[in-house]
């Protein structure tokens, strides 16, 4: 169980939600890409808290810095400035090996393009992760959770986009991660399939209590979240809580 170590701070996204332990605490995050002559400011000072077990949607137009933020939270990337804490661990103080350990034990990723290994079956793709985790599910169990039990031995090329994404989700949750980070998981899918995938993510969040952050630029999806954080041009533009969460099936796209 993750201890509440950080007291809510006024003025920070999420800080108005007292009483729950913060999993992530980010302060003053900036990220600058140097592209030859020009500097691209992907993040221009982001303060953010994410809480234990909550379902957060990151909303914003393309290029607003959502992926950059998520990658930093997931330990895939490091900010140019600012600090990030995961529980009592400062990610920004970790070296490459520390970040790898952090990703290995705490984070599950789901990507827009699934990033499955095409030469491995669904089961093997999941096993790829369970083999290096401390207390994983069995791959079969994880695939059953996403309703793919019968397709376990199929290769990615034999699965539809939605099925591939569900394998990716099974792969992400099989290690029983503390946080599940999804970057436009439905971006490459049609509505129907997208809803199935979102449903799986919501269920994982609900049943396993995994803190979940989902990136999208589809505002409709926001209704299924506990909180919606909107980014615009590298800054947090707006944070709102949903009093009532809508289930994915009821979303209107």
């Amino acid at each position, binding site marked *: 169980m993750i201890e509440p170590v950080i007291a809510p701070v006024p003025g920070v996204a999420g800080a108005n939600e007292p009483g729950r332990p913060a999993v992530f605490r980010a302060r003053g995050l900036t990220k600058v890409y140097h592209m030859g002559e020009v500097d691209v400011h992907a993040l221009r000072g982001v303060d953010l808290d994410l809480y234990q077990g909550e379902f957060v949607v990151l909303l914003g137009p393309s290029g607003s810095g959502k*992926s*950059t933020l998520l*990658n930093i939270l*997931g330990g*895939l*990337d490091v900010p140019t400035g600012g600090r990030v804490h995961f529980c009592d661990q400062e990610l920004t103080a970790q070296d*490459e*090996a520390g970040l*790898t*350990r952090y*990703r*290995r*034990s705490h*984070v599950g*990723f789901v*990507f827009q*393009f699934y*990033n*499955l*290994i*095409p*030469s*491995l079956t669904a089961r*093997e*793709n999941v*096993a*790829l*992760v369970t*083999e*290096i*985790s401390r207390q994983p599910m069995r791959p079969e169990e994880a695939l059953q959770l996403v309703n793919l039990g019968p397709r376990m031995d199929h290769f*990615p*090329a034999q699965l539809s986009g939605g099925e591939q994404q569900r394998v990716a989700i099974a*792969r992400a949750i099989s*290690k029983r991660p503390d946080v599940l980070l999804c*970057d436009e998981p439905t971006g490459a899918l049609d509505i129907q399939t997208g809803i199935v995938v979102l449903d799986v993510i919501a269920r994982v969040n609900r049943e396993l209590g995994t803190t979940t952050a989902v990136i999208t630029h589809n505002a409709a999806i926001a209704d299924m979240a506990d909180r919606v954080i909107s980014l615009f041009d590298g800054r947090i533009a707006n944070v709102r809580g949903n009093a009532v969460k809508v289930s994915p099936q009821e979303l209107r796209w």
Partner: protein
Amino acid sequence: MTALDRKLIRDVLHLKGQVLAICLVIACGVATYVMSLSALTTLRGAQAGYFERNRFAFVFAQLKRAPLAVAERIGEIPGVRQFMARVVKDVNLDVAGFAEPAVGRLISIPEVYAPGLNELHLRQGRSIEPGRPDEVLASEGFVVAHGLKPGDRVTAIINGRRKDLEIVGVALSPEYIYQIRAGQLVPDDKRFGVFWMGREALAAAFDMEGAFNDVCLDLSPGASQGEVIARLDQLTAPYGGLGAYGREDQTSNRFLSDEIKQLQRMNLIVPSIFLGVAAFLLNVVLSRIISLQRDQIAALKAFGYSNLAVGWHFLKLVLAVVAGGVALGTGAGAALGLQITQMYTRFYRFPALEYQLPPQVVGLATCVSSAAAIIGTANVLRAVIKLPPAEAMRPEPPAVFRHTVLERLGLTGLFSQPMRMVLRNIERQPVKSFFSTLGMSLAVAIMILGRFSYDALDYLLEVQFRVVQRQDVTVALVEPTSYRALHEIAHFPGVVHVEPIRAVSTRLRFGHRVRRTLIMGLAAAPELNHLVNLQLHTVPLPPDGILLNTKLAQLLNIGLGETLTVEVLEGARPVRQIVVAGLSTELLGTAAYMQIGSLNRLLREGPSVTGAHVTADALEAEALYDRLKATPRVASVTIKQAALNSFRDTVIKNLLKLQSFNLMFACVIAFGVVYNTARIALSERGRELATLRVMGFTRAEISFILLGELGVLTLQALPVGLALGYGLAWFTTLFLDTEMYRIPLVVNLSTYGFAVAVVLVAALLSGLLVRRRLDHLDLIGVLKTRE
């Protein structure tokens, strides 16, 4: 098995064509390596064992005639452990059914066996028995060449008298592993045989009772060979000593050591080039795999696989390919090494030449090829390790296209749309195109490397046996005589032209370098022994001073105009200074020449000769040979055509055998490289071409786009490859420069043509293979998966 290892296996299976091609290239490198190293080990082991067991002597000396009492004093030289004073005489032989002259070397052995030096290995029959003066042991090479067996007889012509010798046994000697007469370049088992004969009988036949003319000795541990040789020279000088020399200068042993050296070099250069190509191919293929698997690498890292774990995964892929190559190559190398060894048994007479493939050789081959592969792919592996996962997550930015140079020059109209795509594809990725071109150039170059030695050897034979040596027969006389002997020979049947030779044994000294060499005195403007420079223009024989061939000059480290010290090893043994007044090019052996008159003056003697170069009418050859054999003063007769033939049969056959293996490997490599290039082009363009097909392009049209690119790359590669091949050929000639022969840098047009043809055929076949894949392009599948 872990999921990651499964991925590895499936990746290998998926890339089987390319993996196989690279495996084969590595296998070629490993095979040449294993082949030459195992042959080397075998030869070295056999040599060392034989020398040890049969007590091969350490120092040798020949002299004219000395009483046996002198031998006792030789035995007293400090550092001499054991000595053997022998009688050794060369005679003309008459072998039934063989018209040409042959030389027999008669060597004395004790009638009753006593442990000594250079002990014989009895192969067949029995040893000689005391009291039977006609019995001899014959060398195996000669016996085999003439189909003789124990019980057969040969006739030696001793001082004009015929003496029948009965072969009672067939023997081998560590002194004649390579059975060759000093001064000859190649063995000729038909025309030179060694016979071991009882000491009493041999001495009696040559008036050598109580005397000897040859001594060999064994050194005690720690003795200084140089000092022993100096003392030995002092002792033998009054008796016509020709200068003692160590084991390393003993003729048979030197040839064997040269062969070993040659193998050592082969062992270095050819496999290095092959493995270099393999490393290059691995690099190209691996970078392609990596760029195709960027997103997979990112995912692995995102899920907590460490950088090193991911790097190791791809390194394992490399090592798997290496392992395949090593396995294949070791098998092939062992088979070829065995063949080479079997070939050696025909030139080198060992009691046993058992092929050996020590495990260290395989271990070393594995290490070397792994190292080459790792070095070759280090940059790609480093990129894998360094690849930031967030970076890898986003697809590679779309390629930047520009109008090609040709189009910018306003030549757009010249090209069809597909042709424009071909050219833009090539121009867009200059680095990739450069490497593809380089790869195929290497294929061309390796073909040239594999084949040019045929040209070079042809040229060598042409130069040595047509341009330089123009005589038909060379006659050596027993001792220096007046020109009368030449006039006699001039009247022998069929003789057209005779030129004098005065050969004298000397030791040439310059600075601290010393070589034992014959100085050949020739006619002032020799017609039968042309001296030429590198361009094959005649070099005049200077009236004063000495002319060296460039190899000898190089060994002595002496240049034109410098003064050489000549220690004459006969007669009064004068020591003289002489200026190097000319240099000539020869591709075989080392030699020094003077005008005969000038040499006579140097020796303070009147006009005298020791032999002659002769041209003769081929129709009367047999009569001429009969006459020469019957002439007592004729010590030996060398027939040029026979020398040429045996050079072909031995050295050249040997070299060409090795080269044919290399050529075979070169072909394999050429195919490997070209096929890989084609496959990579296919994997890079697959999506694009499938898209075009979906848009309604025909198969022929998309084939043109892909194969056109391959074609343009191939055409670009040809000229580069020809130049590169010439460079590689030049590089190898540096390693094939021995005392015995130099391989000239000669590449015939036909070789260039051959290289081009093989690479074009390889390109065509690869094109067809790729084309077949294009025809079965899975349109939906290709479009569905994200690259």
